[in-house]
């Protein structure tokens, strides 16, 4: 749709549990940032997901200020615990 970007947001681990899903499609105004996508997700689960989580854009660590384009994949990354 004109004037909007459609992005996919991925949630993992504790964030996915809190949100109730690991994936959500978001329609955001053109010019939106990764931080706007985070805010849209947090609108449903404001307490379980921090306001400034680690984020990735298209599988690379990103900042909340990075701009979004249609088709982007944003990931909200809880504290990692591999190994």
């Amino acid at each position, binding site marked *: 749709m004109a004037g909007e970007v459609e992005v996919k947001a*991925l949630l*993992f*681990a*504790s964030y996915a*549990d809190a949100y109730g899903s690991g994936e959500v499609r978001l329609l955001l105004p053109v010019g939106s940032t990764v931080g706007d996508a985070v805010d849209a997700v947090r609108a449903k689960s404001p307490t379980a997901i921090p306001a*400034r989580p*680690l984020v*990735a854009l298209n*599988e*690379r*660590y*990103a*900042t909340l200020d990075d701009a979004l384009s249609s088709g982007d994949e944003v*990931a909200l*990354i*809880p*504290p*990692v*615990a*591999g*190994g």
Partner: protein
Amino acid sequence: MRAALVTRPIDVAAMIAEVADPSCGAASVFLGTVRNVNDGRQVTGIEYKAYEPMAVREIGGILSRARDRFGIEHIVVEHRLGFLELGEVSIAIVAAHPHRQAAMDATRYAIEEIKKKVPIWKLEHYADGSREWVDPTRAADDAPQPGPVAEVVG
């Protein structure tokens, strides 16, 4: 160099064979295994999950930096996903080099970086039936604490 996420038991012997090279006088192996206690709680197993394509990409980047820093050409990492029983190997890192110092430095560098930067999570299962996602930024742990966001980005 190879980085993989696997859902089968890790075959460490096969990984050692994979890095073997006549020019190398040392092979260093790091294994991470499932421990029976964490933060004072009795652990019965751990379920590992990952943001898989990004995790493979991040581990690959770490191995590239290990090559640049330590001159390591032969290094492989396998991280297992899914439910693991106590004592099972969750991660194996094997590095071979002409000399032992670089081989050992590279495996240590790789595990420390993986713990800080790779999007993998563990859901601990406890003896009382409860489960909890491990948060190294909160729990007392023997692992180094992740740095600030700015250190992880890029």
